[in-house]
Protein backbone atom coordinates (compact mmCIF):
# COMPACT_ATOMS: atom_id res chain seq x y z
CA UNK A 1 0.00 0.00 0.00
CA UNK A 2 2.74 2.43 0.89
CA UNK A 3 4.43 2.03 -2.46
CA UNK A 4 3.63 4.90 -4.80
CA UNK A 5 1.61 6.75 -2.19
CA UNK A 6 1.97 10.52 -2.37
CA UNK A 7 2.45 12.86 0.58
CA UNK A 8 -0.88 13.69 2.22
CA UNK A 9 -2.00 17.31 1.62
CA UNK A 10 -5.69 17.18 2.52
CA UNK A 11 -8.35 15.04 4.18
CA UNK A 12 -12.01 15.40 3.22
CA UNK A 13 -14.50 14.06 5.77
CA UNK A 14 -18.18 13.33 5.30
CA UNK A 15 -20.50 14.43 8.11
CA UNK A 16 -23.72 12.46 8.54
CA UNK A 17 -23.03 8.76 9.07
CA UNK A 18 -19.27 9.30 9.38
CA UNK A 19 -18.85 11.77 12.28
CA UNK A 20 -22.38 11.57 13.64
CA UNK A 21 -25.82 10.03 13.19
CA UNK A 22 -28.45 12.67 13.80
CA UNK A 23 -27.71 14.14 17.25
CA UNK A 24 -25.16 11.55 18.41
CA UNK A 25 -21.44 11.54 17.63
CA UNK A 26 -20.03 8.22 16.34
CA UNK A 27 -18.09 6.69 19.30
CA UNK A 28 -14.45 7.79 19.26
CA UNK A 29 -14.95 10.32 16.44
CA UNK A 30 -14.44 13.48 18.53
CA UNK A 31 -11.08 12.25 19.85
CA UNK A 32 -10.05 10.87 16.47
CA UNK A 33 -10.56 14.29 14.88
CA UNK A 34 -8.30 15.80 17.59
CA UNK A 35 -5.58 13.24 16.77
CA UNK A 36 -5.87 14.01 13.07
CA UNK A 37 -5.52 17.74 13.78
CA UNK A 38 -2.19 17.15 15.53
CA UNK A 39 -0.80 16.13 12.12
CA UNK A 40 -1.63 19.65 10.80
CA UNK A 41 -2.97 18.20 7.57
CA UNK A 42 -5.66 20.54 6.11
CA UNK A 43 -9.19 19.22 6.67
CA UNK A 44 -12.51 19.95 4.93
CA UNK A 45 -15.89 18.62 5.98
CA UNK A 46 -17.89 17.77 2.88
CA UNK A 47 -21.62 17.10 2.75
CA UNK A 48 -24.64 17.22 0.47
CA UNK A 49 -27.25 19.52 1.91
CA UNK A 50 -30.14 21.30 0.27
CA UNK A 51 -31.46 23.05 3.32
CA UNK A 52 -28.89 23.47 6.09
CA UNK A 53 -26.60 26.48 5.81
CA UNK A 54 -22.92 26.27 6.71
CA UNK A 55 -23.56 28.02 10.02
CA UNK A 56 -26.28 25.54 10.90
CA UNK A 57 -23.99 22.56 10.16
CA UNK A 58 -21.18 24.20 12.14
CA UNK A 59 -23.35 24.76 15.20
CA UNK A 60 -24.54 21.15 15.18
CA UNK A 61 -20.97 19.77 15.04
CA UNK A 62 -19.77 22.08 17.81
CA UNK A 63 -22.68 21.00 19.99
CA UNK A 64 -21.59 17.37 19.46
CA UNK A 65 -18.09 18.26 20.73
CA UNK A 66 -16.16 18.44 17.44
CA UNK A 67 -13.41 21.03 17.09
CA UNK A 68 -13.54 22.81 13.77
CA UNK A 69 -13.77 26.17 12.04
CA UNK A 70 -16.88 27.19 10.10
CA UNK A 71 -14.79 27.78 6.97
CA UNK A 72 -13.69 24.14 6.99
CA UNK A 73 -17.22 23.10 5.99
CA UNK A 74 -17.78 22.57 2.29
CA UNK A 75 -21.42 21.69 1.53
CA UNK A 76 -23.15 21.34 -1.83
CA UNK A 77 -24.93 24.64 -1.12
CA UNK A 78 -21.61 26.28 -0.32
CA UNK A 79 -20.07 24.84 -3.50
CA UNK A 80 -22.98 26.37 -5.45
CA UNK A 81 -22.40 29.86 -4.10
CA UNK A 82 -18.67 29.44 -4.68
CA UNK A 83 -19.31 28.51 -8.31
CA UNK A 84 -21.67 31.48 -8.77
CA UNK A 85 -19.11 33.93 -7.38
CA UNK A 86 -16.18 32.49 -9.33
CA UNK A 87 -18.13 32.77 -12.58
CA UNK A 88 -19.78 36.08 -11.73
CA UNK A 89 -23.26 34.64 -12.18
CA UNK A 90 -26.43 36.38 -11.02
CA UNK A 91 -28.81 33.56 -10.09
CA UNK A 92 -32.49 32.84 -9.95
CA UNK A 93 -32.39 30.81 -6.72
CA UNK A 94 -34.83 27.93 -6.25
CA UNK A 95 -33.61 26.85 -2.82
CA UNK A 96 -35.09 26.43 0.64
CA UNK A 97 -35.46 29.67 2.62
CA UNK A 98 -33.16 28.27 5.32
CA UNK A 99 -30.40 27.88 2.72
CA UNK A 100 -30.48 31.52 1.64
CA UNK A 101 -27.98 32.65 4.28
CA UNK A 102 -25.25 30.81 2.36
CA UNK A 103 -25.97 33.05 -0.63
CA UNK A 104 -25.44 36.49 0.91
CA UNK A 105 -25.38 39.13 -1.81
CA UNK A 106 -26.81 36.74 -4.40
CA UNK A 107 -30.38 36.55 -3.14
CA UNK A 108 -31.92 39.71 -4.54
CA UNK A 109 -30.89 39.73 -8.18
CA UNK A 110 -33.50 41.55 -10.27
CA UNK A 111 -35.35 39.25 -12.63
CA UNK A 112 -34.08 41.00 -15.76
CA UNK A 113 -30.48 40.67 -14.56
CA UNK A 114 -30.55 36.94 -13.73
CA UNK A 115 -28.30 34.74 -15.86
CA UNK A 116 -28.23 31.38 -14.03
CA UNK A 117 -30.74 28.97 -12.47
CA UNK A 118 -29.90 27.21 -9.21
CA UNK A 119 -32.13 24.32 -8.11
CA UNK A 120 -32.08 22.95 -4.59
CA UNK A 121 -35.07 21.67 -2.69
CA UNK A 122 -37.76 24.32 -2.86
CA UNK A 123 -41.23 22.76 -3.05
CA UNK A 124 -42.88 26.16 -2.76
CA UNK A 125 -41.11 27.22 -5.99
CA UNK A 126 -41.60 23.98 -7.91
CA UNK A 127 -44.73 25.15 -9.69
CA UNK A 128 -45.76 26.14 -13.19
CA UNK A 129 -45.06 29.85 -12.96
CA UNK A 130 -41.62 29.60 -11.33
CA UNK A 131 -40.57 26.71 -13.56
CA UNK A 132 -41.60 28.77 -16.61
CA UNK A 133 -39.41 31.65 -15.43
CA UNK A 134 -36.50 29.26 -14.99
CA UNK A 135 -37.18 27.72 -18.42
CA UNK A 136 -37.15 31.10 -20.17
CA UNK A 137 -33.83 31.96 -18.51
CA UNK A 138 -32.36 28.66 -19.69
CA UNK A 139 -33.45 29.42 -23.26
CA UNK A 140 -31.22 32.50 -23.17
CA UNK A 141 -28.26 30.24 -22.44
CA UNK A 142 -28.18 30.58 -18.64
CA UNK A 143 -26.52 27.56 -16.96
CA UNK A 144 -28.68 25.15 -14.92
CA UNK A 145 -26.96 24.43 -11.61
CA UNK A 146 -28.31 21.55 -9.51
CA UNK A 147 -27.46 21.20 -5.80
CA UNK A 148 -28.10 17.50 -6.36
CA UNK A 149 -30.38 15.27 -8.45
CA UNK A 150 -32.19 13.20 -5.80
CA UNK A 151 -35.40 11.62 -7.13
CA UNK A 152 -37.38 11.86 -3.90
CA UNK A 153 -37.01 12.13 -0.16
CA UNK A 154 -38.97 11.09 2.89
CA UNK A 155 -41.39 13.66 4.26
CA UNK A 156 -43.42 13.17 7.46
CA UNK A 157 -46.49 12.27 5.35
CA UNK A 158 -44.68 10.00 2.89
CA UNK A 159 -42.38 10.21 -0.12
CA UNK A 160 -42.00 13.60 -1.80
CA UNK A 161 -40.36 14.73 -5.03
CA UNK A 162 -36.74 15.87 -4.73
CA UNK A 163 -34.91 18.39 -6.91
CA UNK A 164 -33.95 15.77 -9.54
CA UNK A 165 -37.30 15.52 -11.35
CA UNK A 166 -37.47 19.30 -11.79
CA UNK A 167 -33.87 19.45 -13.00
CA UNK A 168 -34.63 16.68 -15.53
CA UNK A 169 -37.87 18.38 -16.66
CA UNK A 170 -36.06 21.66 -17.32
CA UNK A 171 -33.22 19.86 -19.09
CA UNK A 172 -35.74 18.18 -21.37
CA UNK A 173 -37.66 21.35 -22.21
CA UNK A 174 -34.65 23.56 -22.83
CA UNK A 175 -32.30 20.95 -24.32
CA UNK A 176 -29.56 21.71 -21.82
CA UNK A 177 -27.49 19.68 -19.38
CA UNK A 178 -27.30 20.64 -15.73
CA UNK A 179 -24.12 21.06 -13.72
CA UNK A 180 -24.49 19.07 -10.52
CA UNK A 181 -22.47 20.72 -7.75
CA UNK A 182 -22.84 18.18 -4.93
CA UNK A 183 -21.27 14.77 -4.35
CA UNK A 184 -20.48 12.61 -6.31
CA UNK A 185 -19.59 15.19 -8.98
CA UNK A 186 -15.77 15.33 -9.38
CA UNK A 187 -16.10 19.12 -9.59
CA UNK A 188 -17.44 19.13 -6.03
CA UNK A 189 -14.40 17.34 -4.62
CA UNK A 190 -12.04 19.51 -6.65
CA UNK A 191 -13.69 22.72 -5.45
CA UNK A 192 -13.32 21.52 -1.84
CA UNK A 193 -9.63 20.77 -2.48
CA UNK A 194 -8.92 24.10 -4.17
CA UNK A 195 -5.42 23.95 -5.69
CA UNK A 196 -4.46 20.67 -4.00
CA UNK A 197 -3.74 17.76 -6.34
CA UNK A 198 -6.36 15.03 -5.71
CA UNK A 199 -3.61 12.41 -5.76
CA UNK A 200 -2.44 13.97 -2.48
CA UNK A 201 -5.86 13.77 -0.81
CA UNK A 202 -8.06 11.28 1.02
CA UNK A 203 -11.85 11.15 1.35
CA UNK A 204 -13.45 9.45 4.40
CA UNK A 205 -17.14 8.61 4.17
CA UNK A 206 -19.94 6.06 4.65
CA UNK A 207 -21.54 6.30 1.18
CA UNK A 208 -19.74 4.00 -1.21
CA UNK A 209 -21.06 5.79 -4.30
CA UNK A 210 -21.33 9.45 -3.36
CA UNK A 211 -18.25 9.59 -1.13
CA UNK A 212 -15.87 6.88 -2.26
CA UNK A 213 -16.59 6.31 -5.95
CA UNK A 214 -16.95 10.06 -6.59
CA UNK A 215 -13.68 10.96 -4.87
CA UNK A 216 -11.75 8.09 -6.42
CA UNK A 217 -12.98 9.11 -9.89
CA UNK A 218 -11.05 12.33 -9.35
CA UNK A 219 -7.90 10.48 -8.27
CA UNK A 220 -8.31 10.70 -4.48
CA UNK A 221 -8.07 7.67 -2.18
CA UNK A 222 -11.37 6.65 -0.61
CA UNK A 223 -11.67 5.39 2.98
CA UNK A 224 -15.03 3.68 3.48
CA UNK A 225 -16.27 3.60 7.07
CA UNK A 226 -18.75 0.90 8.15
CA UNK A 227 -21.06 3.26 10.04
CA UNK A 228 -24.10 5.37 9.07
CA UNK A 229 -25.71 4.15 5.87
CA UNK A 230 -23.05 1.45 5.29
CA UNK A 231 -24.54 -1.96 4.46
CA UNK A 232 -22.64 -5.26 4.38
CA UNK A 233 -21.13 -5.76 0.94
CA UNK A 234 -21.13 -2.06 -0.03
CA UNK A 235 -17.37 -2.20 -0.68
CA UNK A 236 -17.91 -4.63 -3.57
CA UNK A 237 -20.59 -2.46 -5.19
CA UNK A 238 -18.04 -0.19 -6.88
CA UNK A 239 -15.10 -0.94 -9.11
CA UNK A 240 -12.35 -0.20 -8.34
CA UNK A 241 -13.25 -0.77 -4.70
CA UNK A 242 -12.43 1.61 -1.83
CA UNK A 243 -8.70 2.08 -1.20
CA UNK A 244 -9.32 1.29 2.47
CA UNK A 245 -12.29 -0.17 4.38
CA UNK A 246 -12.40 0.46 8.13
CA UNK A 247 -14.93 -0.09 10.87
CA UNK A 248 -15.32 3.56 11.90
CA UNK A 249 -13.85 7.06 11.66
CA UNK A 250 -11.43 6.52 14.53
CA UNK A 251 -9.88 3.52 12.80
CA UNK A 252 -9.67 5.48 9.52
CA UNK A 253 -7.65 8.19 11.28
CA UNK A 254 -5.32 5.61 12.88
CA UNK A 255 -4.65 3.97 9.50
CA UNK A 256 -4.08 7.34 7.86
CA UNK A 257 -1.64 8.58 10.47
CA UNK A 258 0.29 5.30 10.43
CA UNK A 259 0.49 5.05 6.64
CA UNK A 260 1.50 8.60 6.03
CA UNK A 261 3.91 9.10 8.89
CA UNK A 262 5.80 6.01 7.62
CA UNK A 263 5.86 7.28 4.05
CA UNK A 264 6.83 10.73 5.38
CA UNK A 265 9.94 9.34 7.12
CA UNK A 266 10.83 7.28 4.06
CA UNK A 267 10.92 10.25 1.70
Amino acid at each position, binding site marked *: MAAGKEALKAVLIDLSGTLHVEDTAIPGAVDALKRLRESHIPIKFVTNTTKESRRCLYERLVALGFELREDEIWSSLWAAQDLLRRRNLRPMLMVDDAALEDFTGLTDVKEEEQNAVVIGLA*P*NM*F*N*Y*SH*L*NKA*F*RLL*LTGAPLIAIHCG*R*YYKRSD*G*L*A*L*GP*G*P*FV*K*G*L*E*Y*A*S*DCESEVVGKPSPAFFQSALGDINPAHAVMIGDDVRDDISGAQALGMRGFLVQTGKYRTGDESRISPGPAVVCSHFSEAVDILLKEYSVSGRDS
Partner: protein
Amino acid sequence: MSALENSRVTGVLLDVSGVLKDGETAIPGSVEAIRKLREAGLTIRFLTNETQMTRRKLAASLIDLGFCLQERDIIPPCPALVTLLKRENMRPHLLVHPDILPEFDGIDKSNPNCVVVSDAADNFTYENLNEAFRVLINMEKPRLFSLGRGKYYSDNGGLTLDVGAFTAALEYAADIKAEVIGKPQPEFFMSVLRDMRVEPQEAVMIGDDIVGDVGGAQNCGLTGVLVRTGKYRSSDEKHPTVHPDAIVDDLAQGVDLILKSRK
Protein backbone atom coordinates in the same frame (compact mmCIF):
# COMPACT_ATOMS: atom_id res chain seq x y z
CA MET B 1 -38.47 23.24 -51.39
CA SER B 2 -37.93 20.75 -54.18
CA ALA B 3 -39.61 18.06 -52.11
CA LEU B 4 -43.01 19.51 -52.94
CA GLU B 5 -42.54 19.71 -56.70
CA ASN B 6 -44.27 17.08 -58.85
CA SER B 7 -46.06 15.80 -55.76
CA ARG B 8 -49.69 14.71 -55.80
CA VAL B 9 -50.85 16.28 -52.59
CA THR B 10 -54.43 15.35 -51.72
CA GLY B 11 -54.44 15.74 -47.96
CA VAL B 12 -53.09 18.36 -45.58
CA LEU B 13 -52.56 17.99 -41.83
CA LEU B 14 -52.21 21.20 -39.88
CA ASP B 15 -51.00 21.89 -36.40
CA VAL B 16 -53.18 24.45 -34.62
CA SER B 17 -51.27 26.40 -31.98
CA GLY B 18 -48.42 28.37 -33.55
CA VAL B 19 -49.66 27.71 -37.09
CA LEU B 20 -53.28 28.90 -37.20
CA LYS B 21 -53.10 31.03 -34.08
CA ASP B 22 -50.79 32.21 -31.36
CA GLY B 23 -52.61 32.41 -28.03
CA GLU B 24 -55.99 33.93 -28.87
CA THR B 25 -54.92 35.68 -32.07
CA ALA B 26 -55.08 34.33 -35.62
CA ILE B 27 -51.68 34.38 -37.34
CA PRO B 28 -51.91 36.86 -40.26
CA GLY B 29 -52.93 35.21 -43.55
CA SER B 30 -53.87 31.88 -41.97
CA VAL B 31 -57.69 32.27 -42.19
CA GLU B 32 -57.37 33.03 -45.89
CA ALA B 33 -54.91 30.14 -46.36
CA ILE B 34 -57.40 27.60 -44.98
CA ARG B 35 -60.08 28.95 -47.30
CA LYS B 36 -57.72 28.49 -50.29
CA LEU B 37 -57.01 24.87 -49.30
CA ARG B 38 -60.73 24.15 -49.08
CA GLU B 39 -61.43 25.81 -52.44
CA ALA B 40 -58.74 23.63 -54.01
CA GLY B 41 -60.64 20.55 -52.79
CA LEU B 42 -57.95 19.22 -50.46
CA THR B 43 -58.86 17.07 -47.48
CA ILE B 44 -57.86 18.83 -44.28
CA ARG B 45 -57.46 17.73 -40.67
CA PHE B 46 -56.21 19.74 -37.74
CA LEU B 47 -53.83 17.50 -35.84
CA THR B 48 -53.19 19.02 -32.44
CA ASN B 49 -51.70 18.04 -29.11
CA GLU B 50 -53.92 20.68 -27.52
CA THR B 51 -55.18 19.49 -24.14
CA GLN B 52 -56.12 22.73 -22.41
CA MET B 53 -59.67 22.70 -23.75
CA THR B 54 -62.19 20.24 -25.13
CA ARG B 55 -62.41 19.67 -28.85
CA ARG B 56 -65.77 21.45 -28.90
CA LYS B 57 -64.35 24.56 -27.25
CA LEU B 58 -61.28 24.60 -29.49
CA ALA B 59 -63.50 24.36 -32.59
CA ALA B 60 -65.68 27.22 -31.35
CA SER B 61 -62.67 29.42 -30.65
CA LEU B 62 -61.19 28.78 -34.10
CA ILE B 63 -64.52 29.48 -35.80
CA ASP B 64 -64.69 32.72 -33.80
CA LEU B 65 -61.31 33.68 -35.24
CA GLY B 66 -62.80 33.23 -38.73
CA PHE B 67 -61.50 29.78 -39.66
CA CYS B 68 -63.65 27.64 -41.92
CA LEU B 69 -63.77 24.27 -40.11
CA GLN B 70 -65.96 21.84 -38.20
CA GLU B 71 -65.41 20.16 -34.86
CA ARG B 72 -64.90 16.77 -36.47
CA ASP B 73 -61.94 18.10 -38.51
CA ILE B 74 -59.99 18.62 -35.30
CA ILE B 75 -57.99 15.63 -33.98
CA PRO B 76 -56.71 16.08 -30.43
CA PRO B 77 -55.10 13.18 -28.53
CA CYS B 78 -57.77 12.90 -25.84
CA PRO B 79 -60.36 10.79 -27.72
CA ALA B 80 -57.65 8.28 -28.71
CA LEU B 81 -56.56 8.02 -25.09
CA VAL B 82 -60.11 7.55 -23.82
CA THR B 83 -60.58 4.70 -26.31
CA LEU B 84 -57.35 3.08 -25.07
CA LEU B 85 -58.29 3.50 -21.40
CA LYS B 86 -61.63 1.81 -21.98
CA ARG B 87 -60.11 -1.00 -24.05
CA GLU B 88 -57.49 -1.82 -21.40
CA ASN B 89 -59.74 -1.33 -18.36
CA MET B 90 -57.58 1.52 -17.12
CA ARG B 91 -58.74 3.70 -14.23
CA PRO B 92 -56.72 6.88 -14.49
CA HIS B 93 -55.45 9.30 -11.91
CA LEU B 94 -55.69 12.55 -13.88
CA LEU B 95 -53.10 15.34 -13.84
CA VAL B 96 -54.76 17.44 -16.53
CA HIS B 97 -56.18 20.89 -17.21
CA PRO B 98 -59.57 21.30 -15.47
CA ASP B 99 -61.15 22.36 -18.78
CA ILE B 100 -60.65 18.91 -20.35
CA LEU B 101 -62.13 16.93 -17.46
CA PRO B 102 -65.44 16.54 -19.36
CA GLU B 103 -63.59 14.36 -21.92
CA PHE B 104 -63.14 11.76 -19.14
CA ASP B 105 -66.75 11.82 -17.92
CA GLY B 106 -67.53 8.19 -18.75
CA ILE B 107 -64.32 6.78 -17.24
CA ASP B 108 -64.01 5.09 -13.85
CA LYS B 109 -61.39 7.00 -11.87
CA SER B 110 -61.63 5.14 -8.56
CA ASN B 111 -58.68 3.14 -7.23
CA PRO B 112 -56.41 4.26 -10.11
CA ASN B 113 -54.15 1.85 -12.00
CA CYS B 114 -52.46 4.42 -14.24
CA VAL B 115 -51.62 8.12 -14.37
CA VAL B 116 -52.55 10.47 -17.23
CA VAL B 117 -50.58 13.68 -17.62
CA SER B 118 -51.39 16.45 -20.09
CA ASP B 119 -50.73 20.17 -20.33
CA ALA B 120 -52.21 21.01 -16.94
CA ALA B 121 -50.67 24.52 -16.89
CA ASP B 122 -51.34 26.14 -13.49
CA ASN B 123 -52.47 22.76 -12.22
CA PHE B 124 -48.81 21.72 -12.28
CA THR B 125 -48.31 22.48 -8.61
CA TYR B 126 -45.78 20.65 -6.44
CA GLU B 127 -48.51 18.87 -4.52
CA ASN B 128 -50.35 17.76 -7.68
CA LEU B 129 -47.12 16.44 -9.20
CA ASN B 130 -46.31 14.75 -5.91
CA GLU B 131 -49.70 13.09 -5.79
CA ALA B 132 -49.23 11.69 -9.32
CA PHE B 133 -45.74 10.51 -8.31
CA ARG B 134 -47.08 8.70 -5.23
CA VAL B 135 -49.75 6.94 -7.27
CA LEU B 136 -47.03 5.75 -9.67
CA ILE B 137 -44.51 4.67 -7.02
CA ASN B 138 -47.15 2.63 -5.21
CA MET B 139 -48.16 0.65 -8.31
CA GLU B 140 -46.78 -2.76 -8.98
CA LYS B 141 -46.52 -2.00 -12.70
CA PRO B 142 -46.66 1.78 -13.00
CA ARG B 143 -48.15 3.11 -16.27
CA LEU B 144 -47.90 6.75 -17.22
CA PHE B 145 -49.78 8.08 -20.27
CA SER B 146 -48.64 11.43 -21.64
CA LEU B 147 -50.82 13.39 -24.06
CA GLY B 148 -48.02 14.45 -26.40
CA ARG B 149 -44.62 15.23 -24.96
CA GLY B 150 -43.88 18.66 -26.40
CA LYS B 151 -41.08 20.65 -24.82
CA TYR B 152 -42.73 24.07 -25.04
CA TYR B 153 -45.16 26.12 -27.08
CA SER B 154 -45.83 29.74 -27.88
CA ASP B 155 -48.59 31.41 -25.91
CA ASN B 156 -49.35 34.98 -26.92
CA GLY B 157 -45.78 35.45 -28.10
CA GLY B 158 -44.00 33.96 -25.04
CA LEU B 159 -42.57 30.45 -24.84
CA THR B 160 -44.22 28.31 -22.17
CA LEU B 161 -43.41 24.86 -20.77
CA ASP B 162 -45.41 22.05 -22.34
CA VAL B 163 -46.40 18.70 -20.86
CA GLY B 164 -43.10 17.04 -21.88
CA ALA B 165 -41.15 18.76 -19.10
CA PHE B 166 -43.52 17.35 -16.48
CA THR B 167 -43.65 13.93 -18.12
CA ALA B 168 -39.84 13.84 -18.00
CA ALA B 169 -39.95 14.85 -14.31
CA LEU B 170 -42.38 12.04 -13.42
CA GLU B 171 -40.43 9.53 -15.51
CA TYR B 172 -37.23 10.35 -13.64
CA ALA B 173 -38.88 10.36 -10.21
CA ALA B 174 -40.59 6.98 -10.65
CA ASP B 175 -37.87 5.52 -12.92
CA ILE B 176 -40.32 4.61 -15.72
CA LYS B 177 -41.01 5.43 -19.38
CA ALA B 178 -44.25 7.17 -20.33
CA GLU B 179 -46.49 5.97 -23.15
CA VAL B 180 -47.17 8.92 -25.46
CA ILE B 181 -50.55 9.47 -27.10
CA GLY B 182 -50.54 12.20 -29.77
CA LYS B 183 -47.87 13.63 -32.03
CA PRO B 184 -45.18 12.39 -32.78
CA GLN B 185 -46.56 8.88 -32.12
CA PRO B 186 -46.87 7.18 -35.56
CA GLU B 187 -50.28 5.63 -34.84
CA PHE B 188 -51.69 9.10 -34.23
CA PHE B 189 -50.73 10.21 -37.77
CA MET B 190 -51.68 6.91 -39.41
CA SER B 191 -55.16 6.68 -37.92
CA VAL B 192 -55.97 10.17 -39.20
CA LEU B 193 -54.70 9.32 -42.69
CA ARG B 194 -56.84 6.16 -42.73
CA ASP B 195 -59.86 8.24 -41.81
CA MET B 196 -59.01 10.73 -44.58
CA ARG B 197 -58.40 7.91 -47.10
CA VAL B 198 -55.11 9.56 -48.03
CA GLU B 199 -51.81 7.77 -48.53
CA PRO B 200 -48.81 9.11 -46.53
CA GLN B 201 -46.93 10.14 -49.70
CA GLU B 202 -49.94 12.23 -50.76
CA ALA B 203 -50.07 14.11 -47.47
CA VAL B 204 -48.31 17.17 -46.11
CA MET B 205 -48.01 18.10 -42.43
CA ILE B 206 -47.44 21.76 -41.56
CA GLY B 207 -46.35 22.63 -38.04
CA ASP B 208 -44.13 24.75 -35.81
CA ASP B 209 -42.72 21.82 -33.79
CA ILE B 210 -39.63 20.46 -35.49
CA VAL B 211 -39.80 17.13 -33.65
CA GLY B 212 -43.51 16.59 -32.90
CA ASP B 213 -44.92 17.85 -36.21
CA VAL B 214 -42.20 17.65 -38.86
CA GLY B 215 -40.20 14.69 -37.55
CA GLY B 216 -43.32 12.75 -36.56
CA ALA B 217 -44.86 13.21 -40.02
CA GLN B 218 -41.68 12.33 -41.88
CA ASN B 219 -41.34 9.11 -39.87
CA CYS B 220 -44.68 8.05 -41.30
CA GLY B 221 -43.76 8.92 -44.88
CA LEU B 222 -45.53 12.30 -45.04
CA THR B 223 -43.96 15.50 -46.29
CA GLY B 224 -43.03 17.68 -43.29
CA VAL B 225 -43.12 21.47 -43.55
CA LEU B 226 -41.88 23.77 -40.79
CA VAL B 227 -43.35 27.28 -40.34
CA ARG B 228 -41.39 30.19 -38.90
CA THR B 229 -44.28 31.17 -36.60
CA GLY B 230 -45.36 30.12 -33.11
CA LYS B 231 -42.60 28.44 -31.13
CA TYR B 232 -40.22 28.42 -34.11
CA ARG B 233 -36.62 29.30 -33.21
CA SER B 234 -33.83 29.79 -35.75
CA SER B 235 -31.90 26.89 -34.14
CA ASP B 236 -34.70 24.55 -35.38
CA GLU B 237 -33.25 24.88 -38.90
CA LYS B 238 -30.03 23.25 -37.67
CA HIS B 239 -31.76 20.41 -35.83
CA PRO B 240 -29.38 17.43 -35.52
CA THR B 241 -31.83 14.75 -36.65
CA VAL B 242 -34.90 16.36 -38.28
CA HIS B 243 -34.58 18.10 -41.65
CA PRO B 244 -37.87 19.57 -42.91
CA ASP B 245 -38.84 18.99 -46.54
CA ALA B 246 -39.57 22.71 -46.68
CA ILE B 247 -39.35 25.71 -44.36
CA VAL B 248 -41.80 28.54 -44.92
CA ASP B 249 -42.38 31.90 -43.24
CA ASP B 250 -45.97 31.11 -42.30
CA LEU B 251 -49.01 29.01 -43.15
CA ALA B 252 -49.97 31.31 -46.05
CA GLN B 253 -46.63 30.68 -47.74
CA GLY B 254 -46.86 26.96 -47.04
CA VAL B 255 -50.31 26.74 -48.62
CA ASP B 256 -49.16 28.67 -51.71
CA LEU B 257 -46.32 26.17 -52.06
CA ILE B 258 -48.72 23.22 -51.91
CA LEU B 259 -51.17 24.75 -54.37
CA LYS B 260 -48.37 25.63 -56.81
CA SER B 261 -47.03 22.07 -56.66
CA ARG B 262 -50.39 20.70 -57.83
CA LYS B 263 -50.56 22.74 -61.01
